[in-house]
């Protein structure tokens, strides 16, 4: 048991690497701060464009969404980080990771918003238009508020997945939480930093997991 604690919960090691882990947490939070709003905005744009029913554009958007949903996010990140420099476009770790995550999550957010918009009865839009609102006004003031409310559970769940996904940036050596934990492990020769990083992720995300569990059950019961 002592050996176990020495390895997995070594206080001395933790104190030594704590500043490193904190700097990693900052990068993780920064990455979330960039990618969540950008992913949501791009996804919303995709869904709204989709709802316009312009033939070729709709096909193009479906291809965009399905293509991005078919690539593992890590594949996208590696293409961007290792591939683009050959075209003369060299992105450093943070922008490369942010770009990959935003593209990937925009496809999921896009699908969610699309489902939300399609769930709003056509009559709503028609009623709004006939009361004199423009198409844009009908969309912004009538359709979207209801659509967004209807998809809060999957939106929350997808955001949790996106936050977790930031950890793949460690593969291209962005010093976020997981990467710093791995670096720290090489300093202290025990897995305490890794366990600490896991604990940080867990404490940060557990409330969200509980919330999603509740929302999911409620929406499933409604079906």
């Amino acid at each position: 048991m002592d050996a176990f604690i020495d390895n997995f919960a070594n206080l001395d090691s933790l104190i030594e690497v704590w500043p490193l882990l904190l700097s990693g947490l900052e990068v993780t939070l920064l990455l979330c701060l960039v990618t969540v709003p950008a992913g949501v905005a791009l996804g919303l744009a995709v869904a709204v464009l989709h709802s316009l029913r312009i033939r070729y554009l709709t096909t193009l958007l479906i291809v965009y969404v399905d293509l991005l949903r078919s690539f593992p996010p890590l594949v996208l990140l590696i293409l961007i980080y290792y591939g683009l420099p050959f075209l003369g476009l060299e992105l450093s770790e943070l922008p490369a990771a942010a770009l990959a995550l935003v593209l990937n999550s925009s496809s999921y957010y896009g699908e969610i918003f699309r489902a939300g918009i399609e769930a709003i009865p056509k009559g709503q839009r028609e009623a709004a238009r006939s009361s004199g609102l423009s198409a844009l006004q009908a969309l912004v003031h009538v359709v979207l508020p209801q659509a967004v409310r209807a998809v809060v559970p999957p939106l929350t769940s997808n955001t949790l997945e996106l936050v977790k996904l930031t950890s793949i940036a460690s593969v291209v050596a962005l010093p976020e939480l997981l990467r710093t934990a791995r670096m720290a492990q090489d300093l202290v020769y025990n897995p305490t930093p890794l366990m600490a990083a896991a604990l940080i992720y867990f404490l940060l995300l557990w409330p969200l997991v509980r919330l999603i569990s509740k929302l999911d059950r409620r929406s499933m019961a409604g079906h």
Partner: protein
Amino acid sequence: MEQLGKYFFNLDVMWGALPAMLEGFALTLEIAVAVVLIGITSGLLLAIVRAFQIRPLNWLLVFLVDLLRALPQLVVIMIVYFALPYAGIQLSSIVSTIVSLAAILAAVSEEIFWAGITIVPKGQWEAARSTGLGFLTTLIHVVLPQAIRVAIPPLTNWTIAITKGTALGAAVAVPEIIGQALSVQSIVANPSPLTLGALMYLVIFAPLVQLSRWIERRYGWAV
């Protein structure tokens, strides 16, 4: 455009990389199949265990499920591969990837099956029990068939999302598609193997994404 052809769709390079890439492709498929089989079966078994409502056992189960839903996939893989050896458990990189992803899929599918079980009306239980069926017989022959039907659409989406995590094996040196592509790429200094790898993922996951769209339409499940 010429650059694009030379660096991303260089057929000579792709041809040279093909044998290694095909090995990676086969390994990716094997890992994915193992993850799906182990993950979903364990998830179903765990949901059945949960139905027995043994208090302390259920608390432990809910905690483990929450833990696996809160931790990023890559963090779980890193813990299994880099931390467990300190507890005397040494798993190969391939087994580590399978165990981690299967555990995550088990957690997620347990939640989905359990949600399915809870929305089967109580009257169904009571009717089945009053005809003389035992608890387990009722669960297996009356409740589960209905619960699994409800579970299929979300389960499909989650299974696809988690199987895409096989690419994360590359981070612990599993020679799957991306791992092979990266090692060939570093030898030939040309990212065409990455393009080939991306195409291989497309071959695996594009049909699955289409399948999930079809299932959603068929079962009328939004998101």
